[in-house]
């Protein structure tokens, strides 16, 4: 290295910090790309369904940024279509998204030193898909015994990439959905989506008990107004699953 004045050295250090941040951000964007393949069709289907549930285009689009959680948005659209009351929609979204508390607990130690603004932004971007990418990066870092200083920029890159594509795919779905006739029964893609999500995920007896218990009770309580039966059925299913787990352990 040639001689450098202290001033240019410090400006180079600032440069390299900027370059590291930029590189981390772009790596985050890049690693999120494969997941978009599965996400983009989802966003489009959501946009389509929100419209067929009777929500105005603006509200359908807004839901993608104010809730920003795929399965919760699908369920909200379905409940609204079925005439659920607002309290049931809000409660169901809350319950369905409670799993994000686990993600929050899992990334919390590595975000401890960040400012409140950073914490708020990254929490907003903490979806299933961003979490999956970010936590596997943290795992790779841990395996090497490293904690890179600017890796929250990686999180930001992954999260923003997902956010932007979710908004765009929602818009495309809304646009297409306004042009599809009702006899195509596109609303049926909703339960089909849930089938695709629930059946492969049932891997043990507790999960099976939760699904069966909730399904049976939901049919029995289908006559309840405002879809209140749904919450009761889900509660029964969860308790049934927990009971089975406990029994196995003792």
């Amino acid at each position, binding site marked *: 290295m040639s001689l450098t004045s202290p001033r240019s050295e410090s400006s180079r250090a600032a440069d390299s910090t900027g370059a590291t941040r930029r590189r981390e951000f772009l790596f985050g964007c890049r690693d999120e790309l494969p997941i978009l393949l599965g996400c983009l069709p989802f966003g489009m289907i959501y946009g389509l369904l929100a419209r067929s549930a009777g929500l105005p285009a603006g509200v359908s689009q807004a839901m993608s940024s104010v809730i920003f959680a795929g399965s*919760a948005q699908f369920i909200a659209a379905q409940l609204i279509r079925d005439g659920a009351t607002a309290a049931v929609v809000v409660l169901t979204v809350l319950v369905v998204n409670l799993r994000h508390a686990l993600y929050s607990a899992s990334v919390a130690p590595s975000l*401890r030193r960040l400012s409140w603004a950073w914490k708020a932004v990254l929490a907003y971007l903490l979806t299933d898909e961003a979490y999956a990418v970010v936590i596997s990066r943290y795992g790779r870092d841990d395996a090497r015994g490293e904690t890179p200083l600017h890796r929250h920029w990686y999180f930001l890159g992954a999260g923003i990439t997902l956010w932007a594509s979710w908004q765009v795919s929602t818009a495309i779905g809304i646009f297409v959905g306004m042009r599809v006739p009702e006899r195509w029964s596109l609303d049926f893609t909703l339960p089909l989506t849930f089938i695709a999500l629930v059946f492969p995920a049932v891997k043990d007896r507790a999960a099976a008990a939760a699904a069966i218990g909730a399904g049976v009770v939901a*049919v029995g309580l289908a006559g309840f107004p405002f879809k209140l039966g749904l919450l009761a059925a889900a509660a029964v299913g969860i308790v049934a*699953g927990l009971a089975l787990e406990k029994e196995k352990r003792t």
Partner: protein
Amino acid sequence: MSWLPWLVLAGLLTFATRLSFIALLGRVEAPPLLRRALRLVPPAVLSAIVVPELLLRGGRIDPTLGNHRLLAGLVAVGVALWTRNVLATIAAGMVALWLLQAVFT
């Protein structure tokens, strides 16, 4: 009634959930019972939505061959278990429903 204020409320609750442990500075761990219960939320909630959707027609249980959505749903369950692919499952279920509707109406 506009749904927007309610969806904003649901969004704020979702944000609060995501922020919860991050805001607690990573000092607090989720209790084990909560962990186990949360794992069971998706199968329970999704099943509570899907099963009545397939089984009920006009508010009554209809387990007959005339229930096209039930048959198409069963096709989708098979494809879901076989391929574990969301798009393949949706495609198979929709094609099955369209075929049934075309043949029997």
